[in-house]
């Protein structure tokens, strides 16, 4: 193994499970395939916080967000992230690292401010999400799940992590008018997508690993036929069931935008 990375899962018990805990082991597996040795640790109190290359914070529901913000505030997470550590924040984790978030009563609270987004209440949306391919991040169409009643509003000029073919995402548009999902700002990746996102989408694990190792050139091609087949079947199922998903929406965002003009 050429180099070693530490992946830290932060305060997983503070929030309701979002089936996102396999993201850490997905980084171990994809790392091994990329000749990176990846170690995982779980941090569940502030004084066991470790210097890591990748931080995962997630879960769902707004009940645990206040506790999560409080716990994260008493760590060096902000300093580590400004030094370039990667932070992948899922759903409740995204609320916690936002500039501000809303609790179930509608009251607004300050978040950690690591992601340049503000969170607002919105009607509830649940379902399977398919992203559009993104050549700039070397990502094919990915699969995930959303279940939230929130609108995620990015600061002007900040890019979304994904544009969606199927799904509601942030409830805001991306730069070219597609449905935006999540946020990508520096080494911070925020998303509402539940499930073993990195396990189901190894190319996204590659993106996290590339950012964590400050790698700028693309990874060599690496096939994972079993996962790609599972994803292909799942995406086909979603497209069958989703009336919105016509051929145009499967195109990469910029191409779709040009066709619309």
């Amino acid at each position: 193994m050429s180099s070693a990375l530490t992946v830290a899962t932060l305060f997983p018990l503070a929030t309701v499970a979002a089936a996102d805990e396999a993201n850490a082991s997905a980084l171990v597996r994809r790392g091994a395939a990329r000749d990176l040795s990846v170690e995982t640790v779980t941090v569940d109190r502030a004084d066991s916080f470790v210097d890591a290359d990748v931080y995962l914070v997630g879960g769902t529901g707004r009940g645990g967000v206040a506790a999560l913000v409080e716990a994260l505030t008493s760590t060096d997470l902000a300093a580590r992230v400004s030094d370039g550590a990667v932070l992948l924040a899922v759903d409740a984790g995204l609320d916690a690292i936002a500039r501000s978030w809303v609790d179930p009563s509608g009251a607004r609270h300050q978040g950690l401010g690591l992601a340049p987004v503000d969170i607002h209440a919105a009607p509830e949306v649940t379902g399977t999400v398919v992203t559009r391919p993104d050549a700039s991040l070397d990502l094919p169409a990915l699969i995930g799940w959303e279940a939230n009643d929130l609108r995620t509003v990015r600061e002007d000029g900040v890019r979304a992590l994904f544009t969606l073919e199927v799904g509601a995402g942030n409830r805001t548009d991306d730069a070219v008018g597609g449905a935006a999902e999540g946020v990508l700002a520096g080494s911070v990746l925020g998303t509402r997508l539940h499930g073993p996102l990195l396990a189901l989408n190894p190319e996204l694990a590659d993106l996290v690993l590339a950012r964590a190792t400050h790698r700028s050139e693309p990874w060599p091609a690496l096939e994972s036929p079993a996962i790609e087949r599972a994803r292909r079947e799942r995406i086909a199922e979603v497209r069958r069931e989703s009336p919105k998903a016509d051929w145009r929406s499967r195109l990469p965002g910029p191409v779709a935008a040009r066709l619309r003009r």
Partner: protein
Amino acid sequence: MSDARDPLRARLALATGRSAGRLSQALGKGSGSMIGGRLALRVDPQVLRAVAGDRRSVLVTGTNGKSTVTALVAAAITPGGAVVSNTTGANMTDGIVTALSADRTSALAALEVDEVYLEPVARGTRPKAVVVLNSSREYTRGVSLKSTLEHWRRTAAALPDDCVAIVNVDDPLVSWAFETAPRRIGVSGGLYWRGDALICPACGSVQDFTDDSWSCPGCRRSRPEPDWKVVPDGDGWAVEHAGERTRIEVTVPGRTGPVGGAFALAAADALGVDVAEAAERVSAVADVDGRYAPYRLGDHAARLLMLKNPAGWAEAIDVAVSTDRPLVVAVDPFGPKDTATMWEAPFQRLAGERVAVTGGRTADAVAILDAAGADVVEAPDIESAVRAHAPGEVMVACNYPAFRRISKQFRGGTH
């Protein structure tokens, strides 16, 4: 049945609830117990206390294995009198009301209780024993493990003085939550899923685990010595308690069966039932809800397990590995997130082993097992999946819809 002793409002509530239950049965919407019970509670929250009356109840709660252990408890306590149980699996307050109002005469009750409803059910039934099996996170429940544990701790502190909390001391979360119970006895119930118990719930330190014990370096809590434990006994199992050894035969494979039996014997003992007699009744339970009896397929026998969360899968994997039985994984579509949490289960314990996969979500199961390094074979149907292994007994680990489909198929469509 309504009873002249009930307060008038409770009698009215029961009458309304029952007719709604019959209506929903007539409309073919399931067993009708949920609708009936829910309506009944909406009319009068005291109704659970009324239908529970003064019978002696055992509550069974936890994340996994509740139905099985409730069935074993119901069998174990029968020497003490007639037993009512919510055998339909309707385990929230209203389902329990329905079960108890359908049988107002049995002096004993064995009740499966959803972990989130323990407090109202304990308040309403004033149980003689509460059996607590385990605790792990469940995706889609919408409740954090932390709030469940705090709820349990509050409930435990408010249990009647003559109630015995029978807790799995191998699970540090359960052990902590029931520290506050007035009376507590420990069962060595095993811990298949350490993922959620790595951190001490009391002080937040990382726990030290050995093969069969745990301790916290922060607050110095450690596994209480169990009063009941399962030990190998020749080719089978026995339960050890107070220097006595009681042989137990349970069809549930692996340690899971005898461990459930140990909880049942402890509950019987708490109700004053003779342990040897209780063990005979437990051993006479051939099957629970079609779940465990092996099905014959020529030279093979298939045992079905139904799994709903990573802890359940971890237990199934443990049974396969520890009893050296080969594994079939059968998963069918069950909503968008049907296989999501399977990624968290420790399938790497099967690395290098042959695992046969079948069902409508074969592609997902293949991906998960392949990532874990298993030697995966795909099979078009359950028979060929079982026959992908050498003759003998095979464990078939299913998600809920695959379990329903395959058990129906094996029973020849009688259900």
